[in-house]
């Protein structure tokens, strides 16, 4: 009998493995392997191109903040408020450009799981194994 489950990469995963081994399930009865996500081939993606490009947004925001602080010295409200206005305006412009104008590589819906864990067990301890797996934030579970 096998208990199959899906996990995120997290410290809980290592804890469930240790817990199972503490309950007399040998390493030979455990099989855990990371799932290779097909849209995750690109290792170096410094701009996080699939989601929000914070570098771009903050950079435009910084330019706005700088101009706000500079012209704040001669405008009525003073540098502090104009810097804040510049920051908000700049970040807003950056956000709008990032959302509407950047051609984003639309990745398929992200798979919620990173690791598949298979535990070999027998009729007597299958309930125990399932309890341990469920209590360590497994994303999905089934038995075959």
């Amino acid at each position, binding site marked *: 009998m096998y208990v199959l489950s899906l996990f995120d990469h997290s410290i809980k995963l290592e804890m469930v493995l240790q817990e199972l081994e503490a309950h007399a399930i040998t390493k030979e009865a455990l099989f855990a*392997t990371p799932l290779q996500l097909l849209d995750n081939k690109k290792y170096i993606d410094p701009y*996080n191109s699939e989601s929000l490009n914070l570098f771009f947004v903050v950079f435009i925001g910084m330019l706005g*903040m*700088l101009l706000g602080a500079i012209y704040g010295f001669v405008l009525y*409200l003073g*540098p*502090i408020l104009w810097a804040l206005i510049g920051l908000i305006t700049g970040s807003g412009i950056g956000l709008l450009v990032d959302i509407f104008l950047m051609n984003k590589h639309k990745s398929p819906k992200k798979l919620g799981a990173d690791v598949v864990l*298979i535990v070999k067990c027998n009729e007597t301890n299958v309930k125990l194994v399932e309890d341990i797996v469920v209590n360590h934030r497994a994303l999905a579970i089934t038995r075959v």
Partner: protein
Amino acid sequence: MPGAGHLMIGKIDKGFFLFIWEFLFNTQANINTAIVYSCTGRFELAKATLDTRWFFLYIGVYVFTFWDAYRLATEMNNFARLSQKDHIPLAHFKLSVIDINYLLKVNKWIPVLWSAVVPGLGHIYLRHYMVGGILFSCFVMTTYQSRLLDGIYFTVLGDFGQATHLLDMEWLLYMPSLYCFSIYDSHYRAIELNKMYEAEQAHFLKNTYTSSQLHLF
């Protein structure tokens, strides 16, 4: 901010010296003050403010910083590709006399929030103590010299004239780059830490838990 690019790619010593250099030369040559005067159309004042003895020294190193950061980033990318292929193991836990350090997944928006309050705190949360310490001390020095808190106090009270009068334009112009650099750098460091954690755990699982002789069917 010269040096920020070096801090981003882990060249912390060089980035730190470039930060010191930037603060020293910029304040001695009064470059930020000259920028404010130039942008607001007071060109004669701008010319009079710049100290040419320091200003011309500034230019060469400023251009060097761009070139050097670009070159280093290109080289680092090559090393990253090579090390990914070789699966160089990462130390995931380190216990020492003064600290306990370990890889762990973090929420990438928490450092953004802390950096927006005080630059450097986001990095300290991520246990990047060197970068966090540098940014934090730069922020404290700049806040004191620019009289930022006085400025905020009088702005909140509505006395904008007094706030403008008190604020030091030479030092206040560091604030946008300090804040915004801390925000996005801590964000990307959190993302990279998560990637490192996943790579390390995947490596560990492959080594430890895929050797069993399971016959499913």
